[in-house]
C-alpha cells in the first residue's frame, strides 16, 4: 500500500467523524450532552438521500440533510432547553427515534426495508483516480475546515466567549447579561447542522441511504470529543487517529495481524482510559448536562 492512498483513505474515513465531532464539541461546550450525534447523522444521511433523489442533485441532498437534521435538533432543543428534560435520556431517545423514523420513511417513500435507490452524489463524473475523485466534494472540505473553524469561533469571537461561559458557568454568564437559552439554541443548531452533514457525506458518497448506515460513527465522534478533551484541534487529531486505525485495519485485512474486533475497540478503549485520567485527565465543561 502506498503512503498516499493511506493518507487519502484516512481522510475519507475521517470526514464524517470530523463533522459529527465538531457538532459534538459545539453542543457540549454550550453545556448540552451530545449523545444524539448518531441519530443526527442518521437523519442527515436519510435527508441527503431524499433531497438528492427528488432534486436530482447532491446540493439538494445537502439541503435535505440540513432539514432532517434540524427537525431532530429542534426536538432536542425543545426537550432540553424548554422542558429541561434529562439530556442523557433525550439523547438515547433521539437515537431510537432516528433509527425508527428513517426505517419508517424508507418504507413510506422508497417502499424498501433496506435502502434507497441510487441518488446523485458529488464529483461522480471525474475520471481517473477514484480516490482523488472523492475529493471533488464540498462536504469533504467542510469536514476538513470544520474543527479549525470551530476553534476560531470558540476562542476568537464574542460568540465563542459567551458559548464557553454558558457551558462552564451559566449563572455567571447570565449575570453578565448573556441570554443563556438562546445561546445554547444557537450552539445546538450549529451542532445539528454539522452532524447532519456528517451523515450526508456518507449517503452522498455511497450514492444511497441504507438502513442504519451510520453504524456507530456518531459514538466514535463522541469518543473523539472526549478523547480530545473538548478542544477542537485535539478532537480533530483524535478523529484522524481513529480513522487511521480503521484504514490500517482495512488495508491489512489480508494480513490478519489482529482480529478486526480489537481494532474496532480502539476509540472506545482509549476514551475510557482518558476518562480514568491515566494519561492527562479529560475534564468536561462544568455545566455539561446540568438542568437547573
Amino acid at each position, binding site marked *: 500500500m502506498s503512503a498516499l492512498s493511506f493518507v487519502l483513505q484516512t481522510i475519507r474515513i475521517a470526514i464524517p467523524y470530523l463533522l459529527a465531532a465538531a457538532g459534538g464539541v459545539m453542543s457540549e461546550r454550550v453545556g448540552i*450532552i451530545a*449523545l444524539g450525534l448518531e441519530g443526527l447523522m442518521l437523519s442527515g444521511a436519510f435527508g441527503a438521500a431524499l433531497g438528492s433523489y427528488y432534486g436530482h442533485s447532491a446540493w439538494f441532498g445537502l439541503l435535505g440533510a440540513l432539514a432532517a437534521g434540524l427537525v431532530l435538533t429542534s*426536538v432536542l432543543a*425543545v*426537550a432540553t432547553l*424548554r*422542558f*429541561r*428534560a*434529562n439530556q*442523557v*435520556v*433525550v439523547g*438515547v*431517545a*433521539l437515537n*431510537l*427515534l432516528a*433509527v*425508527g*423514523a428513517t*426505517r*419508517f420513511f424508507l*418504507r*413510506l417513500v422508497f417502499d424498501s*426495508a433496506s435502502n434507497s435507490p441510487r441518488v446523485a452524489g458529488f464529483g461522480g463524473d471525474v475520471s481517473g483516480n477514484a480516490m482523488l475523485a472523492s475529493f471533488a466534494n464540498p462536504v469533504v472540505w467542510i469536514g476538513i475546515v470544520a474543527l479549525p473553524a470551530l476553534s476560531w469561533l470558540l476562542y476568537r469571537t464574542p460568540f465563542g466567549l459567551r458559548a464557553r461561559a454558558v457551558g462552564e458557568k451559566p449563572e455567571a454568564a447570565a449575570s453578565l447579561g448573556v441570554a443563556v437559552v438562546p445561546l445554547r439554541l444557537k450552539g445546538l443548531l450549529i451542532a445539528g447542522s454539522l452532524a447532519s452533514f456528517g451523515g450526508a457525506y456518507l449517503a452522498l458518497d455511497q450514492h444511497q441511504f441504507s438502513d442504519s448506515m451510520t453504524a*456507530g460513527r456518531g*459514538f466514535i465522534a*463522541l*469518543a473523539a470529543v*472526549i478523547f480530545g478533551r473538548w478542544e477542537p484541534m485535539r478532537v480533530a487529531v483524535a478523529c484522524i487517529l481513529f480513522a487511521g486505525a480503521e484504514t490500517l485495519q482495512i488495508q491489512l485485512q489480508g494480513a490478519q495481524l489482529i*482480529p478486526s*474486533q*480489537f481494532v*474496532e*475497540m480502539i476509540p*472506545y*478503549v482509549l*476514551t*475510557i482510559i482518558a*476518562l*480514568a*485520567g491515566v494519561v492527562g485527565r479529560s475534564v*468536561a465543561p462544568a455545566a455539561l448536562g446540568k*438542568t437547573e
Partner: protein
Amino acid sequence: MSGASVPSAGSANPLMQRFLSAFLAPIVALAIAAVIGDLLILTFGEAPATVFRLLYEGTWGNPYGFGQVLYKATTLTCTGLAFAMAGRAGLFNVGAESQLAMGGFAAGVLGMFLPASTPGVLATVLCLAAAMCAGATVAAVPGVLRAKFGASEVIVTIMLNFVVLALLNWLVAAKIHVPETLHTPPILSGGVARLSASLPAFHGSAANWTLLIAIAAALVCTWYLFRTRSGYELRAVGLQPDAAEYGGVRVSRVLFTTMCLSGALAGLGGMNFVLGYKGYYEEGFAGGAGFLGIAVALVGRNHPLGILLAALLFATLSQGGLAVNALVPKQLTDILTAVVILAVATAVPEVQKQLRAAVASAATLATRKSSAT
C-alpha cells in the same frame, strides 16, 4: 375553626399529589404517543382504528401473542430494573445492552460446559449466578471509574457497550460458534421450561419461567430499596450525595455497589433468551432490550412495581409492531417508543413544576384564609 381546614387540605393534597406525580406524566406521554401514532398511520393511508385493533389482536388478543409479550417483558423487566436501581442512586447505566449480552453469554457458556447429568435446578441456579456475576463484572468497570476517579458513568457505559459487544463477537466468531452460525453450541443442562409445557395455550411462544425470576427480582428490589438500610443509603446518595456523605454514608462505595447491582440485574435478563428460549447464546440477541430498559424505567418511574407494568407496555408495543407489519411498517412502534421516552422525560419535570406551583398557591390561599379570620 378555619385553622382546621388548613391541615385537612394539606393532608388530602400529598396523597393526590403523589398519585398525580406518579401517574400523570406517563398518562400524558401515552396520549401524546397515541396521537402521533395516529398521524403516522394516516400518512401510510391506513385507518388508525384498524391498526390498533390488529395490534391488540396480535398481542393480548390471543395466547401465543400474549406469551410473546410476557417473554419480551421478562427481559425488559430486568433491564428496566437495572436502569432504575442505578437511577435511584443518581447513576445512569446506559450499558445494560452489553451487560445483558455478557450475562447471556456467561449463562450459555456455563450451561455448555456443565455435564448433562447436573441436576436441572442446580444447573439453572449456577447459570443464574453466572449471568448476574458477568453483568456485574461489566458494570464494575464504570462503577470503579466513577467511584475512584469521578469519570462519567454515562460515557464509560456507552463506550463499554461497543468494547464488550466486539469482544463477545470475537469470542463467538473466532472461538466457540457452531460452524455456519453465529451462536454457541447448545447448553447441556440448566434450561428453563417454557410456560407452554404446563399451560398448553401458550404453545409456540417463547415465554418461560424466567418470568417468575424477573417478578421476584422486582419484588426483591422493592424490598431492598424501601426496607433495608443499604437501600436507604442508595436512595440518599441519589437524592443528595453531599448530605448522605455528611450523614455517614460512604458515597463512593454505594456508587460502586449500586453499579454492580444494576449490572447484575441486566445480566439476569440474559437467562431469558439463553436458558428459557433458544438454549444457546446467539450474537445480537440483546437486540436493543438494554436501551429499551431506559424507557421502561422512565415510564415505571424508577419504581420496581411500576417497571413490571411498563415492561408489559413496551413488550406489547414491540410485539405489536410485528402484528401490524402487514399494514404499516413495524418501525411505527419504534417511533412510538422514542416518543413515549421523550414525552415522559419532558413531562416529568413539567408536571412536578406545575404540582409544586399548585401546592404553593393552595398554601398561600390557605394562609390568607386563616389570617383573614
